[in-house]
């Protein structure tokens, strides 16, 4: 069995886990959620096995290196860190609903790696710039940080959902509208990632698909939420809002340490490869933007009134910055016209 095949299978186990968690939550079937947990264990194990197998394969090809050197490999590692972080939180706080919001992210990462026509799963030899232990430290720390932010993001979405539900019959219409709007934006964004980048549809069709997906989710949410009883049951299994808020903060703190370490190891690597620790190139700058957003979150929490919803907004904003650092930077315009003779060694 090759690592690519094993990892493709793992993709579907992650998907299965996400579906089981969501089913367990929406239809209130604890058994489904429990099966979800088992699936995550299986997926995490398969993911790790695939990672190690790929490492071994690279040595068999005579170009041995840790499988952390391109988009495919980093996505595989990203999914694994999300899975593991989820298991830790689920174990610690004994709550399985969270899985309905975090596992889809692990699935999307793996699906992007395995299914996207834009991501090659070939094992490639290391080009000179990538031959550095700092690079390995850089990738590992960054992705642990991203995984923590991903879990924090899932919690923030849950927090907003529970607030929307709680406000459904209350008076805070404006806030509710804001929350709904934020969620719409995100649904469409997620749909765009799915259709445009993972499935490779053209932009227009991808956008239409994303809007349609958001509409379907909204319709389902509206149908489910029409009855007070169903609504209550959907949210009784959520952790307390104050706990979700606290957990968001904790995952962000955890992620912040690792993001800082990631930026730092990246800077040290850049200094040994190019002779400068910081060059304001778009990728570096976006990681700094992400860092600023989460630093804002940490400090905003110290101000009066900045708890709960606003922290959830910032955590969502931060995760969007993470996604942009990771995927979006390649879409930025460039005026680059490299000299014909001198070849940049990147």
């Amino acid at each position, binding site marked *: 069995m090759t690592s690519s095949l094993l990892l493709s299978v793992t993709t579907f186990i992650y998907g299965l886990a996400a579906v089981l968690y969501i089913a367990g939550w929406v239809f209130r079937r604890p058994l489904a959620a429990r099966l979800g947990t088992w699936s995550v264990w299986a997926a995490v194990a398969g993911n790790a096995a695939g990672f190690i197998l790929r490492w071994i394969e690279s040595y068999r090809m005579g170009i041995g290196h840790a499988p952390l050197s391109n988009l495919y490999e980093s996505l595989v590692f990203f999914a694994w860190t999300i899975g593991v972080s989820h298991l830790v939180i689920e174990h610690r706080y004994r709550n399985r609903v969270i899985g309905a919001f975090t596992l889809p992210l692990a699935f999307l990462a793996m699906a992007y790696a395995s299914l996207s026509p834009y991501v090659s799963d070939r094992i490639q030899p290391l080009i000179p710039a990538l031959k550095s232990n700092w690079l390995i430290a850089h990738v590992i720390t960054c992705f642990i940080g991203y995984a923590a932010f991903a879990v924090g993001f899932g919690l923030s979405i849950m927090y907003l959902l529970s607030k929307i539900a709680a406000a459904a019959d209350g008076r805070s219409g404006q806030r509710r509208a804001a929350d709904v709007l934020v969620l719409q934006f995100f649904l469409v964004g997620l749909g765009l990632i799915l259709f445009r980048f993972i499935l490779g549809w053209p932009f227009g069709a991808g956008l239409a698909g994303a809007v349609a997906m958001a509409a379907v989710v909204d319709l389902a949410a509206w149908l489910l939420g029409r009855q007070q009883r169903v609504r209550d049951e959907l949210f009784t299994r959520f952790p307390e809002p104050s706990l979700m808020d606290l957990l968001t903060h904790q995952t962000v703190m955890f992620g912040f340490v690792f993001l800082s370490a990631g930026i730092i190891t990246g800077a040290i690597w850049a200094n040994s490869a190019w002779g400068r620790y910081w060059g304001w190139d778009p990728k570096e700058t976006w990681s700094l933007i992400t860092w600023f957003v989460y630093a804002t979150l940490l400090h905003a929490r110290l101000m009066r009134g900045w708890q709960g919803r606003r922290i959830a907004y910032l955590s969502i904003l931060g995760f969007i910055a993470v996604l942009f650092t990771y995927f979006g930077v390649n879409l930025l315009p460039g005026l680059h*016209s490299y000299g014909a003779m001198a070849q940049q060694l990147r």
Partner: protein
Amino acid sequence: MAGGASLVIVKRLFDFFASVRLTVGVLLSLAVTSIIGTVIPQNEAPANYVRAFGLQGYRLLEALDLVDMYHAWWFQLLLLLLVLNIVVCSVERLRATWPIIFARKPRYRLERFEKSAIQAELSADVPPEALRQAVQSVLGRRFKRLATLPAADGREAVCAERWRLSRLGVYVVHLSVVLLVAGAMIGGLFGFEGYVNIPEGDATDTVVLRDGSGTRRLPFAIRCNDFSLSFYPNGAPKEYRSSLSLLRGGRVIHEKEIIVNDPLRFEGINIFQSSYGKLPPPLPAEGAGPPERLAVHVLSNHSGRTYHQEGAIGDQLDLPEGLGTLRLDAYRPAAEFMGQPLGPAVEATLVHPGQEPIKLTLPLRFAAFDKMRRGRVAIAVASAVPMPERYYTGLQVTRDPGVRVVYVAFAVMIIGCLVTFFMSHQQLCVVVRPRRRGSAVAVYGVTNRNKMAMHRQVELLARRIVAAAGQTARA
């Protein structure tokens, strides 16, 4: 009065710079403005901007400093504001927490503990004395110093604390940010960043500065002894390697082979492998004698084919396709064409069958020259002895005395973050109360952060104490 008013202003200013509100504003502004520089490419040649944005657009970008925005005054001002904010805020807060952090003896106030939300109470079937002993042994194992406070009704409370110094963590993180900015400033003021291309075998002691401010002499010359590159079977580059010698007064003072990710560092100057290229084939110098053998390339305009032949000065060559003959008459080290210097050239006579001879000048440096004649053939000549391929190595040469400060800041930041996020100043207080049957132990906790973890700890501690008391009572 005036003094009072200015005091008020100073106080207001101070409060402004000490506020977390400003921090949030500045951090968000930094995040948002940083985006601009990733959307508009930075430090490109003006022509590229004009092509992309038009002349008016370029003027506007230029006026707003958006073509080099990370060095623009307004971006630097934002950074300065952040640093000022950090310093003022930290000083003010540290003034308040200093007495707490560096008190000779920890101060415990029972009321504060009793009001705390973090508490756990358990009753046990043992006499109060057994519980009291258990408290001493369980806490004694975990904390360095236990303090005893008088509590109500003549009872006493046992108090302990740990990780008081972790309160400093936040200031350590903030210090690291200041250090980082300081290190970057030192680098900007006292360092330089340049590049130089050195052909194999050549040496130079001058580099071109990246910021466009000219060149810079190094305290030594760099000689590229050799450049080599290797590829993987799939064609991807595997390694770029330059063998360098540093020379001073004609003597080699240092030698190293550098590859990407393994630079040469010497006397504070760092030399990195950053690019490479192939040199154009070397040409005969002006004034040199004729090449012994000449390669003659004949392009037939009729068939479009190119033929390669060889000859020496004085030879007469038969052209292919029955096109006639070419005689290589003479070598001119410095030929001219309509007053323009052409460099070394060969004079030749071309005779197509049944036509007048044509006199040609064939410069060695400009292979396409004879195409301009638009004749039946176009002829180019070059030295026939193949010259070995020569590379140049592209080196990034930097000096940055701020790097050390920046690296220290990196370490300080990570340590500070770990302490701040994962340690907390925890204070505990345990009170034992007699009950009608047996006794009860109440554990109170106070902490500056991560209250949930402390709650769990307090509950665990209460259980441990009761268990330990039970064991001693049974024994």
